[in-house]
């Protein structure tokens, strides 16, 4: 009797009308409340759109030399002015931004791939954990900036010969930034995988005979996605700064191939007469990095289930 009345009251309870909310909807709701992150996200999208789509609207070639119009201030024809060879600075900024952002994103993807791979393998296979983590420690103990500079010096010419000037240096910078910045991701991912491996759903999956590779791709990887995404945003920021630093030290892209760091470096020679030539690229780098950092901050909050919903 009591059983029956209990089921009846349960039946009378209001039916849920809304479909169950997905995890990503929750994340998005939490993300929206973080104002800085929203602004950062919008700004980053605007910058990326500006540097990639801008050249379609602003059709002056970044490398076109017009020596009569050199060293001009801002005008309608050249909103950012021109440099010492009469090249339009707005076009150069856009071309430079396209390179800087591409380097940032590609290097981040490479570092992310390496870091997640090492992290998942080290966390999942106990036998590989020790050696792989020692390797990570060794990489963390390397002096990165000096090594990056040395790599730039050493492999510039062979790669230039193999892939052409611009392609070669792009590959060189992306790979060297990638292989020197995967370590933090690997450590975070490994920690998460170690914890996940002991959970019941992994045991359940294993007990129905799931192979290791399927277990990793279907069950482990989706669950470590959030730390990977946060490292991804922060990785873009460090990659852009590193590339600009290399260009600034004169060991990055060649002079006629603009990037933001290179433009800043070229601008320092004319610091006294035309300080704006330094300020524009510097501002572009700083704004991009700032927006990406805020984006990462918001993502970290949104993806953390302990904070979400509060």
């Amino acid at each position, binding site marked *: 009797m009591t059983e029956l009345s209990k089921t009846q009251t349960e039946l009378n309870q209001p039916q849920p009308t809304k479909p169950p909310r997905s995890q990503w909807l929750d994340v998005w709701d939490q993300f929206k409340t973080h104002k800085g992150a929203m602004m950062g996200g919008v700004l980053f999208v605007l910058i990326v759109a500006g540097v990639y789509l801008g050249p379609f609207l602003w059709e002056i070639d970044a490398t076109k030399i017009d020596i009569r119009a050199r060293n001009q201030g801002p005008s309608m024809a050249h909103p950012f002015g021109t440099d010492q060879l009469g090249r339009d600075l707005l076009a150069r900024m856009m071309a430079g931004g396209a390179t800087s952002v591409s380097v940032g994103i590609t290097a981040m993807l490479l570092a992310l791939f390496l870091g997640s791979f090492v992290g998942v393998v080290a966390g999942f296979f106990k036998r590989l954990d020790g050696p792989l983590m020692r390797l990570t*420690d*060794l990489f963390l103990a*390397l002096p990165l900036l000096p*090594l990056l500079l*040395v790599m730039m010096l*050493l492999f510039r010419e062979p790669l230039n010969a193999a892939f052409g000037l611009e392609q070669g240096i792009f590959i060189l910078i992306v790979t060297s930034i990638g292989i020197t910045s995967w370590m933090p991701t690997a450590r975070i991912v490994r920690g998460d995988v170690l914890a996940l491996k002991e959970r019941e759903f992994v045991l359940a999956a294993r007990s129905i005979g799931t192979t290791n590779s399927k277990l990793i791709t279907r069950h482990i990887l989706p669950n470590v996605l959030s730390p990977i995404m946060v490292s991804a945003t922060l990785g873009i920021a460090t990659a852009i700064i590193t590339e600009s630093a290399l260009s*600034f*030290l004169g060991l990055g892209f060649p002079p006629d191939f603009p990037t933001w760091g290179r433009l*800043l470096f070229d601008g320092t020679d004319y610091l006294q007469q035309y300080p704006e030539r330094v300020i524009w690229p*510097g501002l572009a780098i700083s704004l991009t990095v700032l927006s990406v950092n805020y984006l990462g901050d918001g993502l970290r909050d949104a993806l953390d289930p302990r904070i979400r919903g509060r």
Partner: protein
Amino acid sequence: MLTFTIRRLVLAVPTLLFISLVIFLLLEMAPGDPMAQVPLTVPPEVKEKMREALGLGEPMPIRFWKWIVQFFWIEPQVLIDHYLGTSFSEGKLRVISWQTRSPVMDIVVQRIPQTLWVVGTAYIVAILIALPIGIYSAYRQYSWFDQMGTFVSMVGFSVPPFFSGVLVIVIFSVQLGWFPSIYDTTLVVNSWDSFVKQLQQMIMPVMVLALQITAQLSRFMRASMLDNLNQDYVRTARAKGLSEYVVVMVHVLRNSMIPVVTVIALGIPAIFGGAIITEQVFKVNGIGQLLIGAIQANDLPMVQTLTFIFAVLIVLFNLIADVLYGILDPRIRYD
């Protein structure tokens, strides 16, 4: 604790050997030829002799071994000789720079004080600014001060030193003319005037470096304070009637300093690396600038030694951070 320290010290040896091997192998692939500057009229056999005089004739493992002997055995002897007036190192071959044909370590020793002055001052200034900011931001979480602090440290993270450095040069030395834009290392401080001059030229590089360090440290301090402020022992301290000042500045601060101190120790080698750019911007002739110059001039012994010194710093301060953590927090003794 002692066994832990000794074990870590022993482990540091293979780490350093591995790193020196990595650096050596990297430089081994260098395409640059140290003989490139020699005139073409010099006959090839003489060139070959010169090459051997630089130590390039031997196979790779022997050269690596010789470099290790020079760096770990002969250079310390030189140091002992210098201080005690003995003559252990007499007639032994030291690591020679290809650029200047003088011992690498002599040049490094000349350059280190400049770097240490700028980097050291910046680090101390940054710690002095960052800790109070972090403490107050955490104590008044989400106040306007905290929001400002968050924004400023985000900016500090995001503005790279090669931009902030150039920016302060534009503002303070081009527009206002207050400080010199170039660091004069020949300045001898022996009077009040020269002291003021030294201060003026140090302000800008120190400011630029300190901004970055402050940004990171104040975030850490804030997070660490926040972790501790809600703990039970804080409630106990308040309940037994301690003043708010004592609760925050003695009980909470001491406990929150544990992770922050290790972060400070870990940050020191990174600062030496980051100072490379700042040195380049302000033309401070420290070890960072020495490294850039050596890289551009293809001076491999110098590059190898300097990179290795950076690696030694990283390993050493990692060790110090680990040991400090164990000393400060008795719960985490690695026994």
